[in-house]
Every structure is written in C-alpha cells, then in structure tokens.
C-alpha cells in the first residue's frame, strides 16, 4: 500500500505495513520506541473520533519538520484529497540490521482506520500474537500446531523461527567476518615474526657481545621472548585502544548516515582480552622462533667474523 504524505512540500512515498491489534502504537517490532504522546487505544464498542490519530516515523518528523499534535492529510491514492489526521506519536526505529539501509518512511494507523482508508476491510498481510510471559516454548509450539492445523491461506510461525530465517544473511556476513579475522591473524603473525626477526638482526652484534661476555643461550632466548611478549601485549593494547576509538567514530558516522541506533562496530572487553591474549601467544611464538635463530648462530658469526 502507498500513502501520499500531503502536508510536506515534497511528495513523500510512504510504505505502511498493516498492523493488527487494538492499539495504534502496536509496534512492528517489539524494540521500536514510541516517543511523543501515545494515543489511548480504542476500546471495543468505542466510537472513533472524527480526526484520527496516527504515529509516524521519527525520520518523517525530522525531514518534514512535523511534530506531535500537527495535523496532516493522508490519502491511499496519489492525487486525491485525503483526510486530516493528527500526529499522536513519533516512533523511533529499533536497531534492526535488516532495515538499516531502507530509506522509506513508515506511518502507523489504527487498524480500522487503515482498513477503511485502503478499502481493505477484510485483509491483512500479517499480524502478531503475543503470548503471556509465563508461557513456555512447548505452549507456543502447541498453539502454533493448533493454529496451523485449521489455518486456510496463511501460516503461523514462532518469532524465533522468523528471527532465524531473517538473520541468515547476517550469518553469512558473520562467517565472512570470521574469515577476514582469520586472515588478519595469520598476516599479523607473519608481520610480527618479520618485525622481530628484523629487530633481532639489528642486535646481532650486541647479542654476540653478550654471549661472549658469558650470557647463556637460555638467558638471551628468554630476554628475546620476554621482549617480544611485552611488545606484543603493548601493541595489542594500543591497537585495542585505537580500535575502540575507531568504533566510536564508525558508529557515530553510520548512525548519523542511516539514522539508526544500530551498533555497527563493536569492541567488547572480551574481544579486547581475546586480542591481547592472542597477540601474547603470537608474540611468544614469534619471539621463540627469532631467539632460536639467534642462539643457534655462534657469537663470532653474529659478529661477522
């Protein structure tokens, strides 16, 4: 269904999902936030007021300069006069990655209002049924089975199944990110090893002098490994700090671009700890390899004799 937003100087296309339920503000997803003044739900048998209330996307409000209490006109078909409505509430969209790139606007109407406006009195695309919190998964499954047994022309799904279905794209993205992470770790390990080998090469003569002064292979190897471990931990710590600042910048930028509270980049303490731990392991391994190479070489060879 398309609605024309008549008040705005420009013509905005609105995509509206039919919402089932007694309340105007029956949110499409449970996490959508209603801001502004919500309308009192229609009680059964109660007569609807002559000018109906609607809820609009916060985006429309921002783009068109609409506020709660403003009167607009809406119509089901472009070019028609439409009818006046009052903005009763603004809806801020939830942080849903599947909707982040969608730029359409949304308007929410009372079900009876929407049915009349669209001349679709007996038609809905979908509706949600909430169950009591105390109802367990088995009760939901039993209910679904009962509904689907008698359903004709529609099918009921548990919200968790819908979530799994709609998140498959993100599972692929997640695997893709893991692959990138794996490649990054391997590349970082090679880089770290190369850096350590270079550092060790720079110190061949100094290490040779220490060996000639009586420092054992074990002492030299341990010092190289310890230095590598410290460098790796400090480097990963600094990297995590830079990463954290980068997540702030990335989130601020894309949240502004897409007008969503969605978190695009995330650095949790667990991720930081994993990064530092992994870096420590890589540093020790790289240090051990570099040290092994160093202490195997006779001191005079290290001195270039």
């Amino acid at each position, binding site marked *: 269904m398309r609605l024309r937003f008549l008040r705005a100087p420009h013509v905005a296309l609105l995509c509206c999902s039919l919402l089932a339920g007694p309340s105007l503000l029956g949110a499409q997803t449970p996490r959508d936030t209603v801001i502004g003044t919500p309308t009192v739900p229609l009680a059964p048998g109660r007569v609807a007021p002559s000018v109906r209330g609607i809820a609009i996307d916060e985006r429309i409000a921002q783009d068109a300069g609409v506020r709660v209490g403003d009167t607009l006109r809406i119509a089901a078909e472009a070019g028609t006069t439409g009818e006046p409505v009052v903005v009763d509430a603004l809806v801020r969209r939830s942080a849903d990655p599947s909707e982040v790139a969608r730029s359409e606007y949304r308007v929410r109407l009372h079900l009876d209002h929407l049915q009349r406006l669209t001349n679709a009195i007996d038609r809905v695309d979908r509706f949600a049924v909430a169950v009591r919190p105390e109802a367990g998964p088995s009760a939901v499954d039993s209910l679904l089975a009962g509904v689907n047994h008698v359903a004709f022309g529609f099918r009921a799904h548990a919200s968790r199944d819908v979530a799994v279905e709609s998140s498959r794209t993100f599972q692929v993205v997640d695997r893709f990110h893991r692959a990138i992470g794996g490649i990054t770790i391997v590349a970082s390990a090679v880089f770290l090893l190369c850096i350590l080998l270079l550092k060790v090469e720079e110190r061949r003569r*100094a290490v040779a002098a220490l060996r*000639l*002064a009586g420092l054992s292979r074990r002492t030299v190897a341990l010092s190289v490994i310890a230095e590598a471990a410290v460098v790796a931990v400090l480097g990963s710590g600094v990297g995590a700090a830079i990463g954290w600042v980068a997540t702030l910048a990335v989130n601020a930028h894309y949240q502004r671009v897409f007008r969503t509270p969605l978190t695009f980049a995330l650095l949790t303490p667990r991720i930081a700890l994993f990064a530092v731990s992994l870096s420590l392991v890589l540093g020790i391994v790289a240090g051990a390899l570099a040290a092994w190479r160093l202490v195997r070489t006779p001191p005079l060879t290290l001195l270039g004799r």
Partner: protein
Amino acid sequence: MTAPTGNRDGTPLLEAHDVQRRYEAGESTVHALRGVSVAIRRGEFVAIVGASGSGKSTLLHLLGAVDAPDAGRVIFEGRDISRLSDAEATRLRLLRVGLVFQRFYLMPTLSALENVMLPMAEAGLAPAARRARAEELLRYVGLGERTGHRPTQLSGGEQQRVAVARALANEPALLLADEPTGELDAATGAALIALLQRLNADGLTCVLVTHDAALAQSAQRVITMKDGRIVQDTGASPS
C-alpha cells in the same frame, strides 16, 4: 681500588700448545693459525700485533674460549679449555675472562650501570651486591657520575670504559681486548691505555690485539704474528 684481582706470581695463567685453526672460505681453506705456542703469565700486559690476516684475533678468540682450535690445546688456570661445550665455554667467559671489543656493543636500552650489572645478574649475584660492584667499577673507570646514562648519551671513550667495566664485572682473571682503541681518537685512546695500564698495575692480566703503536708500546710484552705464526715475542720464557 678493589676492582681487578690477580697476582703476579709469574706462573702461567694461560698456555697455548701448538694450536691450529683453519677456516673454509668457499672452496679454499684459510690457515689462520699454523701451530702457535705461547704462555701468558699472571699479571702480564701483553700486546699481540701483526698485519691484518696474521691470525692475532683468531689467537685471542682461542685464548678466551670464544673459539676452539682444530688442533692443539689451550690451558687456562691448569684446565684444558680447547674442547669445552658451548655452555662450559660460556660459563668460563662469564666468570674468569673479560672481553672488550673494538666496538663497544653495549645494550642501547640499558643504562651504563645496568650494562655493567648484566654479567653479574647472569652469575647470580644478589641485586644489592651487583649494584654496589657496578657502581664501584664505573667509579674505577671514571664514570661514577654517569651511571644512569644510556650508551647514546655517552661519548665513544666513555662507552668503551663502560665496556671495560662490564668485562670486569665478575672479577675475571684475564682481560682480553680486541683493538680496544680502534674506534677512539688519540686522546680518548690514550686515556683508555692509561686505564688498562692501571688495571694491570692492580694485578689484572691483560692481553690485547692492536694495530695501535702507542698501545703496543705500553705493553710489557709484544707478540708479533705473521701468516698464522708468532714471528717475534719480546717476553717469551726461555724454553
């Protein structure tokens, strides 16, 4: 001053018996030492001189258990050190032999004091004792006021004096120096020679390899080498 230890009883501290050393250089063999025999007595100040390639540095390395001869024996304090394992040779150098090189090879991230303390830490000396001795050694070499300076904050002469102090860390019986004035100007070289003479006067046995005529003249005994053999020894014991 208590830094160097040693005595001048005239007994051999170090003896080389017909030592030979050769290197493979590509397809050819270089005979660096062709059967060298020499005895260094306790308290001697010996300079080994000779042209480049004459074998003097190779001899120094064999005397200090840095390298092993292909043939012959090296006896240090009555012990054959020519067939030591790497660990044994390393331990010997740590405790009984001090080495100084043309380049100073100090650890750049450590202070002068820490550089001197390194061999003492390896030897297991207690932290307080190693600090006290390192400070004493740095005072001895004239760097008592610069213990906290890093090598980059020191002049070449000062760095070489730190290297000497490091070589003396574990009270060695023998100090071996390979071109110790090679990187120093005349004035700082002279100061280092004076320091080495003072060390020897305090009882330390010193063996130096040098091209420096002034340093060679300051030695009690000069061994001249050519083509892997000793051609002159001003202080050889009559056999």
